[in-house]
């Protein structure tokens, strides 16, 4: 009896969850574990043998100056981009929920950049920076200025600008949902109690939208931290590898320089950072629930 119940359970589980479980294990669990093993080998990507090298790859990762420089750059880029994305998104969301005409049209319009992949967007903006901005500069100053993409600081600035442009419309939608979930009567009550609308915003509406803020900030942080497509098409790391962000460095280390073990060890550092961000999000989210 017990035997048959167990086989019934196994049958049901395999029938319903089997396909998902097999695919999930095949592309996430198995590669994750195998990846840990690869960090202890010096595989070159071609040969059948994967010589065991102990902790050498971790030593390489720790002493790889270019890697830590790319991480630092990614950090600067992410912090600035996340702040700007959320400020712009919040202002847009406020404006499109303020009762102006054509709200839906505005929402749909600001979201457009998110429909298109980073590769295509990067090339579109490359044209904007290299041709349109240069032409505007020429018209204003009389001589042709260098493209923003040709200086290290300029390239990073361009990456930030495009990211803000792209993600602001997406985060706007989450903030709009936040605004809509706040009961208007609470704002009215605050106004009757003597708040002006700025005060009502700071003390009533923004605290009630806490979960939207947590969500947008973490979502934009992970998106920015792992950015690759845009980096590849817009700057390709140039000039002089000064705009290589962490994800691109890991890719190049493995697939361009064929240091698969070291690349994998460096990728694991990214995983640890992402895991910390993820746990922080759960912690901050939970804490808010208790307080609210």
């Amino acid at each position, binding site marked *: 009896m017990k035997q048959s119940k167990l086989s019934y359970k196994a049958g*049901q*589980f395999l029938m*319903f*969850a089997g*396909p998902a*479980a097999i*695919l*999930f294990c095949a*592309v*996430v*669990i*198995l*590669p*994750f574990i*195998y*990846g840990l093993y*690869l960090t202890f080998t010096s595989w070159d990507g071609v040969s059948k043998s994967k010589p065991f090298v102990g902790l050498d790859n971790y030593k390489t990762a720790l002493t790889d100056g270019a890697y830590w420089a790319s991480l630092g750059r990614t950090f600067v880029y992410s912090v600035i981009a996340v702040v700007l994305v959320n400020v712009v998104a919040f202002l*847009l969301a406020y*404006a*499109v929920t*303020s009762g*102006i*005409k054509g709200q*839906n049209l505005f929402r*749909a*319009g600001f*979201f*457009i950049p*998110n*429909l*298109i*992949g*980073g*590769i*295509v967007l990067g*090339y*579109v903006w490359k*044209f*904007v920076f290299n*041709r349109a901005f240069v*032409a505007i500069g020429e018209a204003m100053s009389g001589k042709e200025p260098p493209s923003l993409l040709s200086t290290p600081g300029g390239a990073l600035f361009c990456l930030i600008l495009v990211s803000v*442009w792209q993600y602001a*419309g*997406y985060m706007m*939608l989450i903030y*709009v*949902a936040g605004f809509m979930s706040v009961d208007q009567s609470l704002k009215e009550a605050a106004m009757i109690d003597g708040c002006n609308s700025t005060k009502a915003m700071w003390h009533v509406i923004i605290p009630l939208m806490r979960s939207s803020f947590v969500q947008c900030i973490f*979502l934009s942080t992970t998106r920015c931290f792992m950015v*690759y*497509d845009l980096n*590849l*098409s817009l700057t390709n790391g140039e000039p002089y590898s000064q705009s290589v962000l962490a*994800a691109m460095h*890991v*890719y190049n280390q*493995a*697939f361009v320089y064929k240091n698969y073990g070291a690349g994998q060890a460096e*990728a694991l550092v990214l*995983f640890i950072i992402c895991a910390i961000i*993820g746990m922080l999000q759960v912690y901050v989210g939970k804490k808010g629930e208790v307080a609210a």
Partner: protein
Amino acid sequence: MGAGQKSTQSKVVHAIVMVVMILALLVFIAPFILVIINVFKTKGDINSDPLALIGKHGFTIENFPRAMDKMNFWTVFGNSAIITISATVLTVLVSAMAAYVIVRNPHWKVGALFFAAMVASMVIPFQVLMVPLVSLYGGILDVLNSRITLILMHVGFSVSLASFMFHGAIKTNVPVELEEAAGIDGCTTWRTFWTIVFPLLKPTIATITIIDAMAFWNDYLLPSLVLGRRQLYTIPIATRVFYGTYSTDIGLVMAALLLAMLPILILYLFLQRYIVAGVTSGAVKG
């Protein structure tokens, strides 16, 4: 009370907000407008003045057929469409099934463990998995360069978020009583799921379809690692390869970029309401 004065004041504020928003929207879509005005110019006209509405040599549509031919447009469009549609449909079916058996059998340890693993896996960045993925499926099993492999990989990467969302939807929106009644009437679990539970999940199905279809359509990194042959390229890969080859022929580049954006922009024109709603509810739940 000065109500008249107040309403004039708020009208002025509204008008200012409106003007600012229209300007902001124009800035937002300016890059696309720039591509559209330049796509109808000759290479020389773009180089001499990228900002002019119409070039000196007039209006031309010559860039389109050449770009379509050189980027093999219909083939890559077909590849993108087949891969996106199959992977999206499979993700929805497979995830809904998995979520169902997990929700309805909360005491099964295997299910709980599998679900916990899926939720935890959502923090793993793709960069950690790409090297072992290529090593396992390229070096050892040699199954790369196939659309089917890419489709199954797409599904494998998206089942965790999709199952998570279906899990929530089944838990809150599908009454167990309904299924019990079906069970008494002699329905098997399999039939109950497809005839009763699955149709009730429509809103979640729509959300997941929109999020995943957009993600699969625009994905570059995974397809670029799996598909190495020209005939298998998807739109993002073809765009990148095209740009690498013809970056100096700027008229062609403009046409290729517009072609790459056009399918999803046309779809957005018709499904805009659903896409905005789907993305919002996906982001808020996910």
